């Protein structure tokens, strides 16, 4: 391959390079000391990956306990108080400690610099600080379980005045606030880092419109983090002051406004939905293109759709508050409905990417297709909720629970796809495809069996966050199906852990096992300390593909002409 290199700069073979230049890797600390002191984005990203997958498993265990409790109308597995702690911490762990950190801490942290041909993140030490803040925050939040009053129990949204010191006096609530502040700062620093990296560290030739969709989505995510998370941080400080320093920002007694908390929370919370979703959209996009052996269909439309979603997401927060009776319904309704348009563009682009491709049903691809279908269900049910009259009768029922679990389970499918797709690049070893496909079917079918009964339960009036339903034994069979689905999902997670154990250093991956398209597949697996010994010419958003298949570059529709090579110097 080296002799095809353009420009014809002859570099020494890779193995000599390793010995010649990577002083840090060979003379720096090793083992645990290396892990503690590293500023390498790949090792930090790997720490993030392991920590956040552990969080996924912890949150999943909470979910299984919740579902076991709801399997009978008068479940007595946990007490009412314990149940409140469980669903609060299930939501908090999944949203704050798994989904976000997994997306922008783990995969983006590792992949974005490599995708744009950068040696590391722009601020490596800040990156390390982000991880340690995240880990500290996670431990802080979870340590609430070991306090006398138990963990936080006011729901992951912590609505005032339930979350004030009168109604929730325990230490667990304070630890929840503290943990969320720490992980919030971690997210903000990662956002700063991603923005700086993407704006300033792109390799020569890597123009904005040649960035992979995943990198684009991470840029938009990072901007949303910078817009949204400081608001949450401010709100949490206000909440803490109300609890301990005698302020009355959210309490009626002192002239405060309880609904203000909801405005602040959701002004962060709705962009947060897209902070969670956009990275996984990006992962799915990459996977669908690679395993269809085609470029991303409507690449530029995809980018504009992402930007549109981000812009709209800042103006829809009050659709979580339709039933408060104190927000302007039509404005937030139309803004929310409009999000369906760019989201629909994405779904059609994903189908267009597969259309007339040569689809290779690897585990990653199955996960990505499962993501598209599950996300479609979650998206369509979201449109109902954007209509205030329909929200009035489904709000705070299991219909909403089912809606956002369709969405987040779609994200979990994409996350698993991301692990199967990029795992070999990070570790150098493939995962077992047979177990992977089994995992996919458990996860995909489990998700539908889990959510569909919940839609029916919500329409039949089952409120969320109830531990018992003694007056409505007719809800039992639907709850049992949902619990069965949760068990299937649990089995899929076990299969994943089993797969990691079974495949441990067993199937060497090589540099580019999927015949992939973007820059990260040009370097070794795992990449060397500063990611690249050499770069291909970057003339489209698929430099590795163009390099490996020079005769099959992207063509414009209807012309049969290849997208022309732009003439510009390569440094």
């Amino acid at each position, binding site marked *: 391959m080296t002799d095809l290199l353009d420009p014809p700069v002859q570099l020494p073979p890779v193995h000599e390079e390793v010995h010649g230049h990577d002083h840090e890797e060979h003379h720096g600390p090793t083992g645990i000391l290396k892990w503690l002191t590293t500023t390498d984005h790949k090792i930090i990203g790997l720490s993030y990956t392991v920590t956040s997958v552990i969080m996924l498993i912890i949150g999943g265990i909470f979910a299984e306990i919740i579902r076991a409790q709801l399997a009978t109308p008068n479940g007595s597995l946990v007490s009412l108080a314990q149940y409140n702690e469980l669903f609060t911490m299930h939501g908090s762990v999944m949203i704050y400690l798994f989904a976000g950190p997994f997306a922008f801490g783990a995969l983006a942290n590792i992949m974005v610099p490599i995708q744009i041909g950068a040696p590391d993140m722009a601020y490596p030490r800040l990156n390390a600080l982000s991880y340690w803040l995240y880990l500290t925050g996670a431990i802080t939040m979870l340590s609430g379980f070991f306090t006398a009053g138990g963990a936080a129990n006011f729901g992951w949204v912590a609505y005032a005045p339930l979350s004030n010191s009168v109604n929730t*006096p325990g230490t667990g609530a304070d630890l929840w606030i503290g943990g969320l502040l720490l992980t919030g700062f971690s997210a903000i620093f990662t956002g700063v880092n991603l923005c700086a990296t993407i704006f300033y560290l792109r390799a020569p030739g890597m123009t904005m419109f040649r960035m992979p969709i995943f990198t684009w989505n991470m840029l938009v995510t990072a901007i949303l983090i910078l817009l949204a998370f400081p608001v949450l941080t401010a709100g949490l400080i206000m909440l803490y002051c109300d609890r301990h320093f005698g302020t009355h920002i959210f309490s009626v007694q002192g002239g405060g406004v309880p609904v203000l908390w909801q405005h602040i929370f959701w002004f962060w919370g709705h962009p947060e939905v897209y902070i969670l979703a956009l990275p996984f959209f990006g992962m799915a996009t990459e996977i669908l293109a690679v395993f269809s052996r085609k470029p991303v269909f409507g690449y530029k439309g995809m980018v504009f759709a992402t930007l549109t979603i981000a812009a709209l997401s800042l103006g829809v927060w009050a659709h979580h508050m339709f039933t408060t009776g104190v927000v302007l319904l039509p404005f937030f309704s139309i803004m929310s409905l409009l999000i369906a348009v760019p989201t629909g563009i994405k779904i059609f682009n994903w*189908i267009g990417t597969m259309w*007339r491709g040569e*689809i290779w049903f690897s585990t990653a691809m199955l996960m990505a297709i499962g993501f*598209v279908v599950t996300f479609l269900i979650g998206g369509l049910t979201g449109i109902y909720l954007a209509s205030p009259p*329909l929200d009035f009768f489904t709000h705070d029922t299991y219909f909403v629970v089912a809606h956002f679990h369709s969405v987040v389970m779609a994200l979990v499918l994409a996350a698993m796809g991301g692990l199967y797709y990029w795992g070999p690049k990070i570790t150098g070893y493939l995962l077992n495809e047979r177990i992977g496909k089994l995992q996919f079917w458990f996860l995909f079918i489990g998700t539908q069996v889990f959510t569909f009964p919940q839609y029916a339960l919500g329409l039949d009036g089952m409120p969320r966050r109830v531990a018992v339903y003694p007056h409505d034994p007719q809800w039992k069979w639907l709850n049992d199906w949902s619990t069965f689905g949760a068990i299937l999902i649990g089995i899929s997670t076990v299969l994943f852990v089993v797969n990691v154990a079974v495949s441990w250093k067993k199937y060497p991956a090589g540099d580019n096992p999927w015949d992939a398209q973007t820059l990260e597949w040009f370097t070794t697996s795992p990449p060397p300390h500063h990611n690249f010994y050499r770069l291909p010419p970057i003339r489209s958003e698929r430099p590795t593909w163009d390099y490996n*298949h020079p005769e099959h570059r992207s*063509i414009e529709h209807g012309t049969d002409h290849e*997208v022309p090579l732009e003439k510009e110097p390569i440094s």
Partner: protein
Amino acid sequence: MAALALSGCTLPSFGAYPGATSGSKSVFHLWQWFSVGAVVIGGFVCLLVLYAVLRYRRKGDNIPKQSQYHIPLELTYTIVPILIVFGLFAATLVVENKETSNPPTKVTINVNAFQWGWKFTYPGTNAFVYGQTTQQPEMVMPVGENVHFNLTSSDVIHGFYVKAFNFSRYALPGVRNEFTFYAEDTGTYFGQCTQLCGLYHALMWFRVKVVTQSQYAAWIATFNNPADEAAAKAAAKTTYEQTSAVVPAKGSTTKFGR
């Protein structure tokens, strides 16, 4: 579109209920039309995915045509969804304006939510209904008449939700939320708090009994007998004290109080 939105009687229910009030029936029809859209669009997209997955399975080591853009197609699936969205929004507005309008009424009911129960008072009369957790208060309201509701909360946020009315609204501390029901069918309906409000959230129920106007007048009149009234007040007071003793006072559940 408005006429369409309000006349979906022959469509399937898609899991929802027509409801017992005039507003809930409009909401139900809106639900049906949204569902038609969701099923058609969702089904179409699922078929596209299924077709692509089955038709374009990998058959060899060929590299397919690397086409990337098709501007007319992309414009189509941008513009058509925008039109659909504005259609849905128009239907939403019609139903929403009906649902949130507050015409003048003769009957008003004040609803006060608290941890963990409900108190219903009838301004201008002596009637009231009160109950906590295990007891379910049964609110009485007349059929065939607009009834105005003022919803408040004494402590945290609660959710006033009556499934049969296809409606819920937060009870917010410091805010008076107002809405109007026009019940079309008599019967007893189940209501529950939907917004997490603390330990006994799951047990915060009430019932809504919709009765004929003459039955309603008779029910109101039962509170006017001074002897009955005193007895009722005494009963309510006793109930309150008893339940207060059972339910732990706020903040006393942990030794790590303020």
